[in-house]
């Protein structure tokens, strides 16, 4: 039974059927099997946040989730959030504020930030810091990332008062 197991799930709205080894984590499944390489693999033990994706609408660590555990689930990656236009404003704010340099943490950072913005219309800087506390960035020093998230929250409030 260490042999591959069948799984069936939705990834970015598309139905996916695959045979996977039990030991395969969701991050590697997305990257190696589906070639969705926007999900990054950093520490592989849940510390860095680069592998953050959404499963059934909630953010999770894809390095700490087995592919077999996502049977029947809806997985959304940075490719899905980007293509749908859901985070275009947030991405623009990141670019304008220099909230990324090497870009390795950015997909996870964007997904975690969007999760906060969905639940909290007017987050203060402390709330933003806390929500992004599980995502390491080694380039920016975080200030520009906090700026970009704060600015996006403000723009969304203006758009939908």
């Amino acid at each position: 039974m260490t042999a591959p197991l069948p799984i069936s799930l939705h990834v970015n709205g598309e139905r996916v059927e695959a045979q996977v080894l039990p030991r395969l984590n969701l991050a590697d499944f997305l990257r190696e099997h589906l070639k969705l390489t926007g999900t990054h693999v950093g520490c592989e033990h849940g510390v860095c946040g680069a592998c953050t994706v959404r499963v059934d609408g909630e953010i999770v660590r894809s390095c700490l989730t087995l592919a077999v555990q996502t049977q029947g689930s809806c997985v959304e990656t940075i490719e899905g959030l980007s293509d749908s236009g859901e985070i275009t404003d947030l991405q623009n704010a990141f670019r304008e504020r220099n909230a990324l340099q090497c870009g390795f943490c950015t997909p996870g950072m964007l997904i975690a930030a969007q999760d906060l913005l969905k639940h909290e219309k007017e987050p203060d800087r402390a709330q933003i810091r806390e929500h992004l506390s599980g995502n390491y960035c080694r380039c920016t020093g975080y200030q520009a990332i906090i700026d970009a998230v704060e600015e996006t929250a403000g723009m969304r409030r203006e758009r939908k008062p």
Partner: protein
Amino acid sequence: MKASAFSYVRATSVGNAIELLVAHGERARVLAGGQSLMPAMNLRLLAPEWIVDIGRLSELRGISVSGGLVTIGALTRHADVLNSPELAAHAPLLRQATAHIAHPAIRNRGTIGGSLAHADPASEMPACMVALDATIVARGPAGERRIPATEFFCGICQTALSASELLVAIELPAAARNSSHFFGEFARRQGDYAIVGLAALAVVENDRLNDLRAVFFGVSDRPQPAKAAASLVKKAVTPASLSRALEALGEELDPPEDQQANGAMRRHLAKLLLVRCASKLLDRPELHAGGRP
């Protein structure tokens, strides 16, 4: 790194999970939310032959309060604990402590039962269970048994559970109207495992601590109730009596050294937490201001 190869089976019921554990014994590990187990497997600290996934057993999920008893299903996620109005009302210590468990993405999958069964000595939930005088409900082939939290944790990632038992629920007394609590921890980053932490439950009446259960974590191989806290109970706390309690605490603790802190630093931080605890519970900021350990 990646986890080594294993066989995977998804339990269809609690009974089925126990059958699988009986069949595979020590070669199997239970997968709940996986937020402690998967890192340990990815780091190859653990390499089970079998993974028994109980994640879909909805019967193990949920929070209920009845007759002064709070029951929390083992698969209740940290995110559910944080968002529970029942726990905010009846177990506020638990809710406050849960905000310190890792980060949102991990709290969305990690479970209270998983955290307790994993029994990392630097994690928040075991100490909270001891402070709250909780009972761990375990089910095995011989039926159900209730284990006091004070007897449940036996060492680093060691518990009183046998290889064929499943932690199914936690029971704790609902917070009494006159009870108050303190929770504090020091970590390098918000959400990291604590260097030292303190969970405390108290009864404060007429500016006195009439009861105090102060339980440290990160200072030993299991949650450690501070005997020194007893000297603060049922009498007026003064800077001098607090100072004596801190001295006794320093002698009582023998914290380990690791890459985060040596024993002396942990002892210092533990004293600081006890000062903050007494200061907050008694609402006396001057104890904190003057009470440098």
